């Protein structure tokens, strides 16, 4: 739960602040936290590769403007009477959004890497998420890991028999991969049910409640940390404003 509170603090700082430096600060803070806790750089980069790809694409579309004013653009690409260009305002907005999203994603990564599934489930319990959703959550996770192993091995087996040597074959192989995973899923759910019934399943699962006392001091210091950050943030905005005047 403490981890979740810290996550909320970090996330809110990232979302509520419009300040580039604030975002850079959060990104580096969390990254340093990861690196000092034994997560190596490569793993970290792999984790953020996917979201940052989409963020970059999105930011590019924000940066460019379709009807840019050629005078104010950093450069302009003319076609069909349109000037697709890059303006300072758009660029700023895109950069701001890019770093804001990255900071938010890093906060999310913190939650992902620090909590086990059991802990997340317990957080769900404290947040009063309906039991059925948490049950499905836990079961789904279990099946995901099974299907992942399964599809991973099928994929290797297919590669061994040149299933991905050419594009057309690849599509064929993927089709087979999916359908075998599907059949495996169906058969597996039957067997799994038999196994649960043989242990007296009657519609409910056992969830362990983490015996964890919220340490008031820690929670308070996290909250103070968050408020302080946001205050500084506003303060610096204020400062900006004053200097503008």
């Amino acid at each position, binding site marked *: 739960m403490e981890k979740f509170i810290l996550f909320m603090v970090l996330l809110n700082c990232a979302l509520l602040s419009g300040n580039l430096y604030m975002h850079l600060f959060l990104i580096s803070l969390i990254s340093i936290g990861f690196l000092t806790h034994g997560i190596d750089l490569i793993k970290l980069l792999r984790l953020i590769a996917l979201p940052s790809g989409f*963020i970059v694409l999105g930011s590019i579309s924000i940066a460019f403007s379709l*009807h840019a004013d050629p005078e104010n653009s950093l450069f302009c690409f003319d076609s069909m009477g349109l000037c697709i260009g890059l303006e300072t305002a758009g660029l700023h907005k895109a950069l701001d959004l890019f770093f804001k999203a990255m900071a*938010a994603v890093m906060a999310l990564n913190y939650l992902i890497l620090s909590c086990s599934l059991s802990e997340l489930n317990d957080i769900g319990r404290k947040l009063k998420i309906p039991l059925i959703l948490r049950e499905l959550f836990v079961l*789904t996770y279990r099946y995901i890991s099974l299907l992942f192993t399964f599809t991973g091995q099928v994929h290797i087996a297919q590669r061994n028999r040149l299933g991905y040597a050419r*594009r057309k074959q690849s599509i064929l192989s*993927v089709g087979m991969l999916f359908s075998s995973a599907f059949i495996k899923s169906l058969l597996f759910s039957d067997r*799994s049910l038999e196994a649960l019934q043989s242990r007296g399943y009657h519609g409910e699962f056992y969830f362990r409640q983490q015996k964890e006392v919220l340490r008031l001091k820690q929670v308070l210091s996290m909250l103070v940390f968050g408020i302080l950050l946001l205050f500084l943030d506003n303060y610096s905005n204020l400062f900006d404003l004053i200097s503008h005047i």
Partner: protein
Amino acid sequence: MRKKLFVLLAFLLPFQGFSMHIMEGYLPAGWSVFWTVVYLPFFVWGVKVIQKIVIKHPELKMLLALAAAFAFVLSALKLPSVTGSSSHPTGVGLGALLFGPIVMSVLGVLVHIFQVLLLAHGGITTLGANAFSMALAGPVVTFGIYKLCAKLKCNRSVSIFLAACLGDLTTYTVTALQLALAHPDTHTGVTGAFVKFASIFSLTQIPIAVVEGLITVLVMNILIKN
């Protein structure tokens, strides 16, 4: 017979648009709240339906969870050799038709939560918006097109292809629209922004939609043979 039907239909309602999600932090607070509020009724309705189902048949819990897991795993498989990019083909909801489409609204969220937790793909504050596009808009179109094709007596493979492919494109269009609403262009407003988002994401989305349509047809054919 029921099982046959189920196998046959299960691939028809793909979870849409795993390939494209709005990332954490990418929506202003107002829009996050807006989409969450829009989606909430469907979600609550879905949870109610599921609760009713599992009270009667606790064994269906496994099937629902497997459906979600299956959809997630397919969405997460990186298949660079197929599409030439590290894109994600759409997953498939296996229980959806058996339990009715509204159950999808819940399974879709479940799948998305795992995408967030395991792949850092998407986000918590953007959950509502993403769920709306992938677990509601897309499937509705898929379902509609398949029904329509059935009425028009189209070739089965063609209808499956169209349903899957267009469903995927719907998700992508809705996502682009959501982004455009949140970040209008400085000069051309929402319309311009929509054109921008739609065109830049079309680079990845259109090939994915086509490949996904093809794969869905293939898989269906294999499963029908079985």
